[in-house]
C-alpha cells in the first residue's frame, strides 16, 4: 500500500493544528468525580488554547473502560450539557480503538477540520481505573482484545499478552532481564520531573525491578503498568482559524502511518516485530521524514518490549538493539533522543485508553514549549508519537511538528 502525501500542508488554511492541551494528575484520586474531571480537563485545554466552550463545534470522546454506564454518558453527549453547549454543538461522538484511540482521534479530528465538517474539535478523556474495583477490572481486561471462542478458554489475560511479546523479544534479540528493566528506570526518571505522574517522588532501580515478584514470566510486578485515574484533553482547529484568533504557535500533523498486524495475540506472525516497521515506513513515506528528523518521541509503553520493538521499527536503532538502546541512557532526561518525557504509562500511570492520549498530549505540550521548565526539552521542533491497542493489534505513528503562524518555525 503506497503512502500518498497528505492533502494539506503547512501553508494550507485548512491544515489541522493542535492549539491547546490539558491534564489532571494521574494516580489514585477516589475523591475526584468522573464528569467533574472531564469538565475540568476540557476547560483546562480550552484555556490553554485561549478559548471557551462555545468556540467548540465538535467534541470527540476517548472512552473510559472503568464503567459501561460512564462510557454511555460520554457517548450520548453528556459533555454538551455539562459544558453549556446544548443547541450549539454540531456533533459529539466517541472514537475507540483501545490504546491507539488517541492516534485515530487525531486522524478523525484532522479529517473533520481539513474537510470543513468541523472548525474546532475538543477531544476529552477521563479514566477511573485507579479507584475502580481491581478484580472487576482484571476480569474486564481478560475479555477485551481476546477472542472468547479461541483464546478465552486458555486463561489469557493482559499481563500474559505482554509477557508473550516480552519473551519472544528477549529470545530474538538476546536482550537481558537488566536491559528490559532499565526501560522502566528511564521512565521513572522522567516521572520525577512530571507533577502529574503517579510515581513522582518514588525513584526506581534495575535491582528493585528484578527483585519484585514474577507475575507473568518473564515479567516482574514492577514491569507491569499500574491502573490509574487520570484525565487529558486537547483542542484542534484549522491553521487559518488559529491565525485569526492570534494564536502564533501551533502543532501540525506532518503525516501518519499505521499497521493492524493481528487481532488475537495467537495470530501475530512475529511477536518480536509486530506492525511497527510497516507503520513507520508508511508514516515516513507520507511525510518525507526519517527517524533522524525528530528531537523527541512519545511511544505507548505498557510493557518495555512494546516500546523497544517500536523504536526498532521506527529506525531509532539497529534491529534487535531496542532494549540496549534504552539501557544506554539515550532516551533519559538529558539524552540525545528523549522518549516518554511524562514518565509514560509505566511511571505516570496506566489510565486505560487515555495512557496513549497522555503521551500524545505530552508530545504536543513539548512542541508548544509548555512543559514544566525542568522537563521541557530545549529546541524541540518535531516529535514522533507511537500508539498501539488491544493485544498490540496495531502500530500507529503520528509525526508532529511545531509551527509558527501556520508556517514551520
Amino acid at each position, binding site marked *: 500500500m503506497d503512502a500518498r502525501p497528505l492533502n494539506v500542508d503547512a501553508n494550507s488554511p485548512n491544515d489541522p493544528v493542535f492549539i491547546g492541551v490539558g491534564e489532571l494528575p494521574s494516580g489514585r484520586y477516589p475523591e475526584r468525580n468522573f464528569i467533574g474531571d472531564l469538565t475540568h480537563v476540557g476547560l483546562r485545554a480550552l484555556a490553554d488554547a485561549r478559548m471557551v466552550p462555545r468556540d467548540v463545534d465538535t467534541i470527540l470522546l476517548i472512552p473510559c473502560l472503568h464503567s459501561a454506564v460512564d462510557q454511555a454518558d460520554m457517548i450520548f453527549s453528556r459533555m454538551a450539557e455539562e459544558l453549556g453547549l446544548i443547541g450549539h454543538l454540531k456533533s459529539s461522538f466517541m472514537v475507540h480503538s483501545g490504546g491507539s484511540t488517541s492516534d485515530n482521534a487525531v486522524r478523525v479530528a484532522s479529517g473533520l477540520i481539513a474537510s470543513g465538517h468541523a472548525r474546532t474539535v475538543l477531544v476529552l478523556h477521563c479514566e477511573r481505573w485507579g479507584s475502580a474495583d481491581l*478484580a472487576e477490572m*482484571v*476480569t474486564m481486561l*481478560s*475479555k477485551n482484545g481476546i*477472542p472468547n*471462542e*479461541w*483464546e478465552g*478458554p*486458555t*486463561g*489469557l*489475560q493482559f*499481563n*500474559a499478552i505482554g*509477557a*508473550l*511479546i516480552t*519473551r*519472544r523479544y528477549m*529470545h*530474538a534479540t538476546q536482550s537481558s532481564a537488566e536491559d528490559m528493566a532499565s526501560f522502566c528506570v528511564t521512565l521513572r526518571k522522567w516521572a520525577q520531573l512530571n507533577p502529574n505522574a503517579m510515581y513522582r517522588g518514588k525513584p526506581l532501580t534495575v535491582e528493585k525491578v528484578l527483585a519484585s*515478584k*514474577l*507475575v*507473568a*514470566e*518473564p*515479567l516482574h*510486578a514492577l514491569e507491569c503498568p499500574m491502573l490509574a485515574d487520570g484525565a487529558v484533553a486537547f483542542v484542534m482547529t484549522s491553521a487559518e482559524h488559529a491565525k485569526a484568533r492570534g494564536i502564533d504557535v501551533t502543532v501540525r500533523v506532518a503525516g501518519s502511518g499505521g499497521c493492524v498486524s493481528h487481532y*488475537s*495475540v*495467537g*495470530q*501475530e*506472525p512475529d*511477536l518480536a516485530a509486530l506492525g511497527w516497521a510497516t507503520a513507520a515506513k508508511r508514516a515516513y513515506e507520507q511525510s518525507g521524514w526519517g527517524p533522524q528528523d525528530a528531537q523527541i518521541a512519545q511511544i505507548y509503553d505498557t510493557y518495555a518490549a512494546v516500546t523497544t520493538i517500536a523504536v526498532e521499527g521506527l529506525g531509532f536503532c539497529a534491529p534487535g538493539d531496542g532494549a540496549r538502546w534504552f539501557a544506554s541512557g539515550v532516551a533519559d532526561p538529558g539524552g540525545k533522543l528523549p522518549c516518554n518525557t511524562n514518565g509514560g504509562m509505566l511511571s505516570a500511570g496506566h489510565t486505560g485508553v487515555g495512557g496513549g492520549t497522555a503521551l500524545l498530549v505530552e508530545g504536543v505540550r513539548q512542541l508548544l514549549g509548555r512543559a514544566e521548565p525542568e522537563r521541557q526539552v530545549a529546541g524541540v521542533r518535531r516529535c514522533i508519537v507511537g500508539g498501539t491497542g488491544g493485544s498490540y493489534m496495531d502500530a500507529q505513528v503520528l509525526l508532529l511538528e511545531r509551527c509558527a503562524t501556520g508556517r514551520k518555525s
Partner: protein
Amino acid sequence: MTNLIRDEFRAGLARGDLLLQRCNDCGKLNMYPRHACPHCQSPSLGWQKSAGLGVLHSFTVLRAGAPEGFESDLPYALGVIKLEEGVQLLGRLLPDPDGDWHSYRCDDRMQFKAASPESAAHRPCAWFARLAV
C-alpha cells in the same frame, strides 16, 4: 449465541483431535476458524485434522492475576504454537514432571496432546508439550 464453527472445533478437542479449518474452494487452512474464507471469501468451509506438530513461538507462565474462573489453575503456562501446516494458535502448555515449566524455550519443537473429554469440556483449548527428543 449459536456458533457452529466453535462447537465443531470443540467437539474435535473432546475427541482428542486438533482441527484446522480448510476452505473447500481454495484449499487453504484458516486459523482461527472463520465464517468465510479470508483468502477467497468462500462460505464453503470444512475441517482437517492437524498432525499436531509445531514450534513454540513464545510462552509465559502466569503466576498471579488469573481471570475470573482460572484462579485455581495458577500457575499455568500459555504458548503460541506455529504448526507445521502453516497456521498458528494460542494453547496451554503441559508442565514438566516437576510441575513447573523450566525446560521450555522459544523455538522448541512441540506436540499437541489430546486432553480427556472432561478436561476438554472444562477448558476447551488445545494443550501442547515439548516433543520428546
